[in-house]
């Protein structure tokens, strides 16, 4: 369980995270989505007690993170896959974490195996690791205390497609066994495939928060016409907010019927009219995060 209320971070007069609230329940995966610089990492660091918030509170497993007596046994954290001493061997890095929190060190080889790092990789120094290997080591570090909550910042970064599929299965299994997962990403497809719940952040503010299915249901209707400007005017006059897609269609949060009726009333012939699907979340994401991209096309 993770609960955050009104979390805010200001640096001087710049507000990086602005009144962010949401909760992550056991048994679910929450995708924390936003473009680079939206405040995702700062929010996660505040949850983990590494960055003091300017306002607001965050609790993990019922307590502020810094008040957990031995947080490594309750919460697995991966904030930066590269945040290890490069001169230390992968296996040794994991042993140090296990030692610190009093976790069973005999599980270390098993954990390395679980994240797909073999004995040879474990004996290499972290300096020689690719980003993908560092992510795998980071996930092993997060799992070493057998936690009930996972907080992962961009865990899919640097993983190949096979690695991403592996991580998806791992996190899904973790949540299905009753664990709570909060992971951030700017890779939309990654979150769409995995998350039960999606929180979208933009310029430090939450712009969407809900069940994945509910959010995606709101993506509505895709419509295309030769006279796109007239269609857009017709839809706007009808009180809708059409958002252009990258390939020259319009995306409208309305039913097929409403869109068809408005088009017909304006005498516009749609060349395509269907329920939006495909990269649904991507459209949602761009609509929410950067409406300016659509407005000029």
């Amino acid at each position, binding site marked *: 369980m993770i609960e955050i209320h009104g979390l805010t971070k200001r640096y001087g007069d710049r507000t990086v995270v602005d009144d962010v609230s949401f909760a992550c329940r056991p048994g679910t995966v929450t995708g924390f989505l936003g473009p680079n610089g939206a405040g995702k990492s700062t929010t996660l660091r505040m949850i983990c007690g590494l*960055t003091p918030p300017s306002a607001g509170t965050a609790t993990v497993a019922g307590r502020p993170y810094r008040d957990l007596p031995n947080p490594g046994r309750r919460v697995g954290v991966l904030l*930066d896959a590269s945040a290890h001493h490069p001169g230390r061997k992968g296996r040794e890095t994991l042993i140090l974490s296990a030692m610190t929190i009093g976790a069973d060190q005999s599980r270390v080889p098993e954990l390395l195996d679980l994240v797909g790092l073999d004995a040879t990789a474990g004996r290499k120094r972290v300096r020689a690791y690719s980003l993908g290997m560092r992510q795998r080591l980071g996930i092993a570090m997060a799992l070493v205390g057998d936690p009930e909550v996972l907080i992962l910042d961009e865990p899919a970064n640097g993983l190949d497609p096979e690695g991403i599929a592996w991580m998806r299965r791992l996190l899904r299994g973790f949540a299905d066994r009753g664990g709570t997962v909060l992971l951030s990403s700017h890779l939309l497809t990654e979150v769409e495939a995995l998350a039960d719940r999606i929180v979208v952040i933009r310029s430090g503010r939450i712009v969407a928060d809900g069940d994945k299915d509910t959010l995606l249901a709101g993506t509505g209707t895709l419509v295309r016409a030769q006279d796109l400007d007239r269609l857009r005017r017709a839809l706007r006059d009808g009180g809708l907010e059409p958002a252009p897609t990258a390939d020259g269609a319009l995306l409208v949060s309305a039913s097929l019927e409403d869109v068809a009726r408005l088009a017909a009333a304006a005498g516009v012939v749609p060349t395509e009219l269907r329920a939006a699907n495909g990269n649904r979340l991507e459209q949602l994401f761009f609509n929410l995060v950067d409406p300016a991209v659509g407005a000029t096309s």
Partner: protein
Amino acid sequence: MTTVESSLRLRLESAGRAPSLPRLTLVELRKFLDTRAGLWLLVAIGLVSAAVIVVTLIWTPDEDQFLGGYFADSILVLSLLLPVLGILLVTGEWNHRAALTTFALVPKRGRVSVAKIAAGGAAGLGATVVSLGLASAATGVAAISGGADWSIRWSHVASAALLLVLSVLMGIAFGMALLNSALAIVVYFFLPTIWAVLGSAIPALRTAAEWLDTGQTMPALFAPDVTAGSWARLAASVAVWVALPLAIGLLRVGRREVS
């Protein structure tokens, strides 16, 4: 209660307790050894101490060949090099953002700092023992070639241990106050030296230097007569060069945002 139940109970108990200071200190001691840079620094420190003893063994006149003499030589070298170990123990975390991992596991940062200080103290004592071992080996070698003089003043051994512990702590203090390896090493070597030069060059500063230059107050422990004044001067210099940066460092480490 079955074995499974008792092991589960044990697991839950250890899960609920904060990592103990001895445990954290062991982790910090392990960090001295488990990186290539740390290991080589230790090997280099050992080799240089041994080399200095060998030089003494070969080129120093016979009347200076004795256990206490070899020991004093190696301590001199160790007191110069061990602080670097202390600096790196602290700054290594921040240079590589490893602090992000460390403080996620132990959010009470003061405990990590105390563990580092304890590990530094242990390293200082360990170095004293190693130094004594090297000096004994040298005396053994001297015995083969004729005269072996096993004399040593045990008060000097105690003073040496104190000196080495203080040197490592001074390194840790500079590391914590500056949180950057290169900067801390440069400042550590230059600031006290500049102070020593100024102290000896400017007459008005001479009295202050007697109290605040560790280059004067620390060797005073090895003088024939160690007076209450020597201890007072040592305490004053330690307050300025160890306690003050340590206090600043503890505050900085406690407050600094890890990113």
